[in-house]
């Protein structure tokens, strides 16, 4: 089993396989954030594919939690279990919740297309969600060996009539009642031509089903695990963005009701919110409808942190993931010790330009020195301010930039070429790191000097998305396995790493297959092209260059949600081809930045650090995807 090639943890059915692969930090952070508010009200979790939403859901499922006692002594899993215990998901290593992950796609969405009054359609959807959830709970319990006779459903007080209506006293009757509802709605959805509303008659009785309003706890007798357990029933509606917006609104309204005692989450992708909503969520605003208080009724959690990007934190997570994922691979166990991907990648010696290329650079520098009419001392002083650890080729490239800058800066020159005065007011200041990076990027484009190597750059390219990290890193793991097969040392030099990762990035972009993918590719090409241009300017005005396209926020307001560009952006953001950063204050104006996703950055050969952007307009973006009016 090679976890690098299982695209996502989601496919791993066996809890025993899954648990050791989950990196505990993100889980810990998640539960810490909202600890007291996660199981008593509606929680909406927003994240892009691969951000870990579904892994989270799977983690909470009964079949995973029921496996926890097997991991009692396991150090790899200890931290994870501690977080779960702290969040009241586990009670002394036993499950404290009974969660059902309910995918919202397809069938539930189809309810919207039935030719009925809106209110009826909402009723059908709610009833279907309730029926499926109840049935899911029952199946989940049976799957872990619980006999339904050991189960008691605890309902809220003063709910006898409602309790009878769903047969809560008799588990088999309880199940049957839910099945009748599910069947009835299933038939309606899947009829080739749906019956007219006035033909529904008897169906509607079957469909009157509302256990959520009364169920509070599920009790399991000691027969199962040696002591009686009380579980908080929970529904996790996954991929909620697949519901129709009106459906989603209704479900949101419904589940915000504090009278509901079961735990309920909705997992959704960014593009479920239209661009406006998404931007509002980023700014942490809420729309208020009468009688509700969204802040109290609902918690919204963004799984990707676009503003306060913590690169260090994610690098640590990536390292942890890499370690867990390499465990099953024999090639990485060497004589008792265990190699880490980080060590392997970082041991690569930095690349060097060929003598020819270095010569070209130096010759250019010499010419620039002349043009600038600088003295050798001046240049040496300038170079002395560079960090001590940089290699000669990088040094030459940085000098190139500094000299170009000097050229641009110096106003007039004497016509007779008299040497310019040493501008004594110019401090010989230390050259900041971004300029070094900029120099390296320029050498990448001019001389194909490898740039994308080393563990940190790989982690930074992942947009804090574990799945993206794994996909990018998997090519390196493949190459390392080849080395192992050939009996060679487990190492990849800078060029090999760089090449593998660049190719992979290109392939991933080619493989994008979702609505508007061709246009997203065009957009990425356009933005990437402009950024490359800016990055390659000899005087490196933005030091390490640009990786984003910025338009004025006021310009973005002009985007109509029905515009094709709006749809293209939806999907670009959903699949992290682009990342939206706004508001971004710069030069006294407020911008909206469309930063290229990590994969695109690698494919285009740009910097990973945030902030450098090309100024542009909404209109230009529209033109780039071919949809300008």
């Amino acid at each position: 089993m090679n976890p690098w090639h299982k695209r996502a943890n989601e496919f791993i059915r066996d809890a025993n396989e899954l648990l050791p692969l989950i990196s505990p930090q993100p889980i810990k952070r998640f539960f810490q954030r909202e600890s007291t508010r996660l199981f008593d009200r509606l929680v909406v979790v927003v994240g892009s594919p691969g951000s870990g939403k579904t892994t989270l859901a799977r983690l909470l499922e009964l079949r995973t939690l029921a496996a926890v006692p097997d991991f009692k002594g396991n150090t790899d899993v200890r931290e994870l279990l501690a977080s779960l215990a702290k969040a009241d998901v586990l009670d002394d290593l036993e499950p404290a919740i009974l969660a059902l992950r309910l995918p919202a796609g397809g069938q539930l969405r189809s309810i919207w297309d039935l030719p009925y009054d809106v209110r009826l359609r909402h009723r059908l959807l709610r009833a279907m969600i309730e029926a499926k959830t109840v049935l899911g709970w029952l199946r989940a319990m049976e799957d872990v060996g619980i006999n339904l006779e050991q189960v008691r459903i605890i309902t809220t007080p003063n709910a006898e009539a409602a309790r009878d209506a769903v047969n809560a006293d008799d588990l088999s009757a309880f199940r049957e009642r839910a099945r009748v509802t599910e069947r009835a709605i299933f038939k309606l959805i899947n009829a080739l031509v749906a019956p007219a509303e006035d033909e529904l008659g008897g169906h509607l009785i079957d469909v009157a089903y509302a256990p959520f309003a009364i169920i509070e706890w599920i009790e399991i007798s000691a027969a199962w695990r040696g002591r009686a357990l009380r579980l908080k029933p929970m529904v996790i509606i996954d991929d909620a963005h697949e519901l129709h917006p009106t459906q989603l609104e209704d479900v949101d309204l419904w589940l915000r009701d504090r009278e509901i005692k079961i735990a309920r989450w909705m997992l959704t992708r960014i593009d479920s919110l239209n661009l406006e909503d998404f931007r509002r969520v980023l700014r942490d605003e809420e729309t208020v409808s009468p009688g509700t208080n969204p802040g109290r009724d609902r918690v919204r959690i963004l799984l990707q942190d676009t503003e306060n990007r913590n690169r260090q934190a994610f690098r640590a997570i990536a390292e942890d993931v890499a370690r867990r994922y390499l465990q099953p691979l024999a090639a990485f166990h060497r004589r008792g010790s265990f190699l880490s991907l980080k060590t392997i990648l970082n041991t690569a010696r930095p690349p060097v330009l060929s003598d020819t290329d270095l010569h070209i650079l130096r010759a250019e520098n010499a010419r620039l020195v002349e043009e600038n009419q600088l003295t050798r001392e001046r240049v040496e002083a300038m170079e002395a301010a560079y960090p001590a650890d940089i290699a000669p080729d990088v040094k030459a490239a940085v000098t190139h930039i500094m000299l170009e800058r000097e050229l641009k800066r110096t106003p007039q020159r004497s016509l007779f070429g008299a040497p310019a005065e040493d501008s004594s007011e110019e401090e010989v200041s230390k050259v900041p790191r971004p300029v070094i990076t900029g120099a390296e990027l320029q050498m990448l484009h001019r001389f194909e000097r490898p740039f994308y190597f080393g563990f940190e750059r790989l982690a930074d390219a992942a947009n804090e998305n574990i799945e993206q990290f794994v996909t990018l890193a998997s090519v390196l793991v493949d190459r390392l396995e080849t080395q192992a097969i050939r009996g060679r040392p487990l190492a990849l030099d800078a060029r090999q790493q760089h090449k593998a990762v660049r190719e992979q990035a290109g392939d991933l972009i080619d493989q994008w297959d979702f609505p508007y993918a061709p246009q997203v590719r065009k957009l990425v090409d356009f933005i990437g092209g402009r950024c490359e241009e800016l990055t390659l300017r000899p005087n490196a005005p933005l030091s390490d260059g640009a990786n984003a396209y910025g338009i004025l926020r006021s310009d973005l307001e002009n985007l109509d949600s029905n515009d094709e560009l709006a749809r293209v952006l939806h999907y670009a953001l959903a699949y992290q081809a682009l990342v939206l950063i706004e508001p971004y204050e710069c030069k006294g104006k407020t911008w909206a930045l469309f930063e290229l996703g990590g994969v695109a950055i690698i494919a285009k050969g740009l910097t990973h650090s945030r902030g450098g952007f090309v100024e542009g307009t909404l209109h230009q973006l529209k033109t780039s995807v071919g949809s300008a009016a």
Partner: protein
Amino acid sequence: MIRVPNLSLDDVDEFISDYFPTAGATLLIGNVGFSPEVLYFPERLGPLSNVDMRFFHERRPAVPAVITHLASEREQQLRELSACPMQVVDIAILAEDGAPIGGRNACMQVHQWLNAKAYTDVVVDATGMSRCTAFPIVKQLYQLSRDTPIRVHLLVADSTQAFSNVESVSNDRGGWMHGFPGETETDEFAKALKLWVVQLSEKAGTSLQTMYRELDSPEEVCPVLPFPAQNPRRADELLFEHREYWQREWFESPLNFIRAHETDPMDVFHSIARLHTTRVEALTGSGLISQTVLSPVGRRLPGIGMLLAALSYELPIFYLETVGYDVHGDLVPGARGIPTHRWHFRVDKLTPTHD
């Protein structure tokens, strides 16, 4: 074994010229597609006075202008072929939020056409029609034919050189084909073993992954390899292209591959029928329930074979909708000649044989 009355190549043309002139009121349902084959059967049926031609015009959001333009030209050409007044109806394939609704809309429309007039024969010309509209209406008519004497014909024409530079852009979420839902959606069958029979096609990796995930990791996967094929290495190349999926994620062994002719729907039908019936037989009495799920991906003709299998054995179909097209280079409309492949199926006569 279920028999499917079928005709191919010139036998189809012979049938059309012999049968329809003296048939009763006939409804021809087609789609205004952009390939030239779309005109082939209407050319032969349109001039008949007992044939009413009704066309869908499938509408999708992200279609390049050059394709829309070509489709409009087709519409005009079709009008010129029709003896009786022709109707073209827009069918939205996707709702505003991107959910697939083409099948439901198509069935609704067919329902209206059938209510407007009594027909003895209905012909579905699936030549230029997407699966999401063709399959549900064929099933609708098939169901109708069980209760009424209506005769249902399925016609398909295809050529090997059709628009190789046009790529479909897939939706990023899958669903059951309208009318072909999986029983596994309901509690009774939730624990049934899923046997996923999926057509392998070039550049379909992302689609395959999406479907695999949304089918909740089916227990068994049977990739369908195109063999015989125009390129004898095509099946091997597809296996190589998709090795990440079937070797690593699906954990399938080569024993689970089935082969079906690249352009012969009857062979696809037979291969699936054999697989399904053998499996059902093997599991009888074991207490295990198995559901065979079909996913047509890629070229049209094998998909038709899957449709026939789905109708005959009541199998569900899971798929990703095509949301648009990507055209590389120029769109050169092909020459109008005799299509390389022509097929006719009598859908109302799918009957079990008695051995």
